[in-house]
């Protein structure tokens, strides 16, 4: 029998190799985390008591914390739950200037309180050095970048004292047009670790995690920046008192094209929120009326991550939301005037996610054909999911867009062969090759970095503004080529518990030439670079504003 077995094995190897060889280049997303120095294992503190926070994972954030022009990576640690009150050390990976990293967390002061959740990287005090807000089940931690490669804990007297409880993620934008970054902190639910509840098999006494529907949502918080990187709680004044879903994801984007940042919040098992900015930093709740609060069938979904992008290339941002398994991920097409339509099924966006539990999501042109694709980080919360065809460790979901709002799944052998319990996901370009790589956190697992390999010239555009918002968060970048018009919105905080690189990435397929780059800055001024711009190779471009 041995020769037969060996022969069959060889045939399998050959077949696998053949399949891999036939895969498109978009499948070449090698995982290089440890080999480039990203040595970090998330500790979820899995306990027999099965505390709900242990299922959530923790965040990642791309930032250039030392100002050397190379993107560094922050990875949040969680630890034991309930937290002990001790400071928890995170991972802060300084880019050596070649796309490899050193963990400098200890000397840089990368620590936080509470059970770590999301990470938001933004320059809150407008001094040109990117700061960090670490969310937690417990108090948040504000780490001010001293500008010398170290951070100081500025939480005390920051005005963020009301962000207690369980904060999952945050987003920043100049919501009130006063020149600095305001903050929206999304909070999950009121979890009591001592609650007299038993979830699981009471006959055997084996616990499992409780359904989040047992717990009340916690009210989100909106903070106005005082102009110096400290904040005041303006939740009520901004008209956001009713924002008390079980929030997990949040982002600011100008959804109606009127120049101010609107808010979209992904809530777990409750309706998602859409708050329209009135232009002065106060908001109107248009959640239900917008059509983006529930799915096409009127059902609130278990939403986790979000991203906005112009998937159909009509110039406005659409909304993509990740959900629980046996729901599908949801794509809301922007129909203008803050009206959205769930096109998950007809677009092909939803069905491939049927057996996957999605968390982080990013939109990027991963096959370099000029159309935006999505990549979703998946992984279940239950080690033994209730359905046999749903796994704990799951493959990521790669959906290739056609630029007209339709998607198809691209299966890749290597992605299928390495399922993870993935959570946060953020785009960044640490090797400065002009294309975005993927940082992925795994719940109770290793930090990963998947490298994309451009097959067309790419253009990475960074903005630099000489205001209290130096990264120009809220700006809109429009690239006009001989073939299309691609629009990107510069955000801080999206996906799930993550902050992506503030650079915006464009691929230039063969035959396409850039005709114009337009930047609409956060306060409405516009910069245009006109004329035929040739980019024979991948290029990074920094556009400076006034």
């Amino acid at each position, binding site marked *: 029998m041995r020769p037969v077995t060996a022969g069959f094995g060889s045939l399998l190897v050959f077949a696998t190799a053949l399949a891999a060889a036939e895969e498109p280049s978009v499948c070449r997303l090698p995982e290089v985390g440890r080999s480039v120095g990203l040595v970090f294992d998330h500790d979820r503190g899995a306990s027999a008591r099965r505390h709900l926070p242990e*299922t959530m994972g923790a965040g990642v954030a791309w930032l250039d914390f030392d100002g050397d022009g190379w993107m560094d990576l922050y990875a949040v640690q969680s630890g034991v739950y309930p937290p002990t009150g001790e400071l928890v050390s995170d991972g802060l990976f300084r880019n050596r200037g070649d796309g490899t990293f050193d963990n400098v967390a200890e000397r840089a002061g990368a620590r936080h309180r509470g059970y770590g959740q999301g990470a938001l990287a933004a320059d809150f005090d407008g001094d040109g050095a990117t700061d960090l807000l670490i969310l937690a089940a417990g108090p948040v931690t504000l780490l001010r970048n001293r500008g010398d490669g170290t951070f100081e804990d500025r939480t005390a007297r920051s005005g963020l004292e009301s962000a207690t409880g369980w904060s999952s993620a945050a987003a920043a934008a100049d919501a009130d047009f006063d020149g600095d970054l305001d903050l929206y902190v999304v909070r999950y639910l009121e979890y009591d670790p001592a609650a*007299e*509840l*038993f*979830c*699981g098999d*009471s*006959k055997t*006494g084996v616990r499992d*995690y*409780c*359904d*989040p*529907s*047992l*717990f*009340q949502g916690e009210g989100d918080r909106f903070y106005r920046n005082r102009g110096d990187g400290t904040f005041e709680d303006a939740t009520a004044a901004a008209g956001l008192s009713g924002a008390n879903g079980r929030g997990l994801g949040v982002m600011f984007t100008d959804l109606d094209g009127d120049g101010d940042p609107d808010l979209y919040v992904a809530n*777990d*098992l*409750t*309706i998602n929120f859409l708050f329209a900015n009135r232009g002065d930093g106060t908001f109107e709740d248009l959640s*239900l*009326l917008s*059509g983006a609060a*529930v799915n*096409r*069938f*009127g*059902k*609130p*979904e*278990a939403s*986790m991550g979000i991203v906005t992008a112009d998937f159909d290339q009509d110039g406005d941002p659409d909304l993509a939301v990740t959900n*629980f398994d*046996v*729901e599908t991920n949801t794509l809301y097409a922007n129909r203008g005037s803050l*009206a959205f339509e769930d096109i998950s*099924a*007809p677009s092909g966006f939803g*069905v491939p996610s*049927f*057996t996957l*539990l999605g968390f982080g999501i990013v939109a990027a042109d991963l096959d370099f054909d000029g159309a935006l694709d999505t990549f979703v980080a998946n992984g279940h*919360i*239950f080690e033994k999911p*209730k*359905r*046999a*065809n749903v796994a704990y460790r799951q493959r990521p979901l790669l959906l290739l867009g056609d630029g007209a709002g339709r998607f198809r799944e691209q299966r890749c052998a290597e992605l299928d062969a390495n399922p993870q319990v993935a959570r946060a996901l953020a785009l960044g370009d640490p090797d400065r090759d002009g294309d975005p790589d993927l940082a992925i956190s795994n719940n109770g697992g290793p930090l990963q970095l998947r490298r994309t390999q451009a097959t067309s010239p790419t253009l990475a555009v960074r903005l630099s503004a000489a205001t209290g918002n130096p990264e120009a968060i809220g700006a809109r970048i429009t690239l006009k080529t001989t073939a299309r018009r691609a629009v990107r919105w510069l955000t801080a905080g999206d996906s799930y518990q993550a902050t992506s690189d503030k650079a915006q990435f464009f691929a230039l397929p063969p035959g396409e030439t850039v005709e114009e780059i337009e930047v609409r800055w956060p306060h409405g001024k516009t910069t245009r670079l006109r004329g035929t711009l040739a980019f024979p190779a991948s290029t990074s471009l920094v556009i400076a504003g006034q």
Partner: protein
Amino acid sequence: MRPSRSSTLRTSLVLLLLLAAFSARGEGGSAALTEAEAVLARDPARALELARAILGAEPEVPQVHAVLGRAAAQAGQPALAVEHLGRALALGGETLQLRLYLASALWETGRYDDAEASFRRACELSGAGSRGQLAWHQLGRLLLWLARAPQAVEALERAVALGSQAPDAALDLARALDLAGDPRALAAFTRAVALAPESPRARWGLAHALRAAGRREEAAAELEIYRELYQREQDSVRNGGLVRASLDFAWSLLRAGDAEAAAAAFARLGDVAEALEGRARAESARGRHREAVALLETAVRRFPDRDDLLEFLARERLAALTEAEP
């Protein structure tokens, strides 16, 4: 996050359970098979275990594979369900029920074309009446889920024609019309709301259609009703879940031998019927039989058909006689 199934599949399961009521009993003939069928709805894992045991002795009996497949479907193992339901079919055991279970399991495993074919065959088998309504409705749901709007409309119109008072079919037809961009969607949602005025999903559909028709004020009014109904539904789910998890907490204490803490935990749940029973068992375990008797007397009034409780009460009464006076 949400550890429950989607409304689509949950509704499918409910429909299939309804269908089970139509099914012929005792097809397999054996007592064990009958027992497996009997426990299927309330304990699919047990049914699966029983059916597997029978399969060892009767590997080629279609009814055995059918029960095993149905149990697998209900136990959340759709691939196993497809295997055994398919085997039952190959062995000549085709029934409407089998076809519907197989189609649902194929749907769950992502074999959409096969699921559609199986639903269509179920439609052929079902004839008119409520069985036909069920089969066409299920086919329509799949097609709607796949965004094949014209075909979904066609199937759901058949379903509604066979059961015009069925609110779920009416709502799905409205959704399919909406997806198809058919102007009849607004009237269909209005009809769905008339059939199920307390359904938040029907209300949402109507609001959506009103908004699409430019009737924003009416849409806003419907959305307020939706919000209220939805909140009520959320509260109901939450309260139900909290009671269940609290009861299980108390049971876990009792099983762990901490009867005093268990009694206190059950007591905090007030006069919830199961809490009365649990408290009685905890008091009995503490040797406080008079308290147990008092609690059980209330509990048996709540559960008059629970013979085990009556037996337990009798035993406790006996034990109370020997219990020392306080």
